[in-house]
């Protein structure tokens, strides 16, 4: 076993993958809790899928796909917010439309760009082993920014998550905070796409938080527990996928899902 672990860490790409996974766990642990508490799981999933449109556009124009991915994720987040506020379209309908449109655009543009079938697979299902050093840097910077924002606006996010109607009544900028939260979700989701892919992003965002909530009390403890669980799932998932030579994203999610079901049964 010890021999295996040494073997595991001797490769650069494995160390990079692990670093990216651990940084992402911090991000998931914090943003994931707000996603759960604010019941915006479906919006977050919609944002992830819509990001695919931007990724396709980036490829098509020959620019960095992730930058375009983040752009389209934020546009979607704001678009869903504005449309469901103004037009006579309910929020979940707006999400459904944005989600499918983004996916369709992504598939279309990637196909037109030719020769990127392997990348298409990577974006849909994730490939943590293909993460580069600069990706790790970007994930770390994003994680730091979001940590600072959540530290500064902790009490505001707590009021908004618990009782937004009261928040508005006492002059809290609820609408602005909500758009900020959706923007942070958009950033997180695009980072996580690298690791587990568009289809499975939502699982990594919600499962660690959901388990932590079953066992911890108080928001800070739940966040810490969620970060810890995310780190464990990423590490174990990576190890198993390396040993058995199976896809890393799916292994990470299946590990998390298994623990979630066991934890749910145990806490009944």
């Amino acid at each position: 076993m010890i021999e295996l672990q040494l073997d595991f860490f001797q490769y650069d790409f494995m160390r990079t993958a692990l670093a990216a996974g651990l940084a992402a766990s911090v991000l998931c642990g914090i943003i994931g809790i707000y996603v759960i508490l604010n019941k915006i799981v479906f919006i977050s999933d919609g944002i992830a899928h819509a990001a695919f449109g931007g990724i396709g556009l980036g490829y098509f124009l020959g620019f960095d796909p992730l930058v375009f991915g983040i752009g389209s994720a934020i546009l979607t987040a704001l678009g869903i917010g504005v449309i469901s506020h103004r037009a006579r379209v309910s929020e979940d309908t707006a999400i459904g439309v944005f989600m499918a449109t983004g996916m369709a655009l992504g598939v279309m543009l990637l196909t037109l760009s030719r020769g990127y079938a392997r990348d298409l697979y990577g974006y849909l299902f994730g490939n943590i082993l293909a993460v580069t050093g600069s990706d790790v840097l970007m994930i770390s910077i994003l994680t730091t920014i979001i940590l600072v924002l959540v530290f500064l606006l902790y009490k505001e996010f707590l009021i908004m998550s618990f009782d937004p109607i009261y928040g508005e009544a006492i002059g809290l900028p609820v609408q602005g905070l909500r758009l900020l939260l959706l923007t942070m979700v958009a950033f997180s989701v695009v980072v996580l796409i690298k690791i587990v892919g568009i289809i499975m992003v939502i699982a990594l965002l919600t499962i660690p938080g959901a388990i932590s909530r079953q066992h911890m009390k108080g928001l800070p403890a739940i966040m810490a527990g969620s970060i810890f669980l995310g780190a464990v799932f990423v590490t174990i998932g990576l190890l198993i996928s390396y040993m058995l030579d199976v896809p890393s994203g799916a292994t990470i999610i299946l590990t998390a899902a298994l623990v979630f079901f066991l934890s749910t049964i145990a806490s009944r």
Partner: protein
Amino acid sequence: MTTVSIKGLWVCRAEHAVLEDINLELEPSDFLGLIGPNGGGKSTLLKVMLGLIKPDRGEIRIFGLTPEAARGRVGYMPQKTMFDQSFPVKVLDVVLMGRYSRTGLFHRYGPEDRAAARRALEAVKMDDRAEREIGALSGGEQQRVFVARSLVSDPELLLLDEPTAGVDSAQQTEFYDLLSHLNHDLGIAIVMVSHDVTAISKYVSKIACLNQRLYYHGSKEITNDDIEKAYGCPVEMIAHGTPHRVLREHD
């Protein structure tokens, strides 16, 4: 100085009036019960007092100030909110939320905020529950915590929107006694929206009936005529013993 002064106030939505020519004066010691049919504009009037809805016409002053400027001196308890009963937050932290208007954006709560939260919990006799999770409390206890949240900024005026919805009658009586105490002993003016005329008439000092127009005579007296106009149908009014009256609405 008058606590609330509203003169000729109109609020319109999509071409029709929600509030029509509202006039209301309240003194610092007043406890006003605001009754009226659903959709009659009761919540809207509270929101105007909080500065969340701008009147289309007329004037409103709270402590002689605009509602926005007075917000720090007003406590508000919304209609029973459907918060997630398993939300991971302690009672003390819920009460602290009421300090937001004093603490402001980005600032953290300090020791004086925590002391105020403890005092507010003592005022509603919930100080022994401070460290419990909010979802672990009964409906009546939760209502008390939300009153504490509206008290924690040391308001001179409390606005309560149907505060006893979903609370059983024994707890309601205790709750109204608590409000009487706040009104009499701490000198906090209260405006309470309710549909339960029977229950509130014993506790409030004034009653107003709202259905677009406000039927109010600066007292606890409401005439049969007022009620019929407001509810738009004949309403049975039973005087049962003195001094309080019981009004009941026909279905």
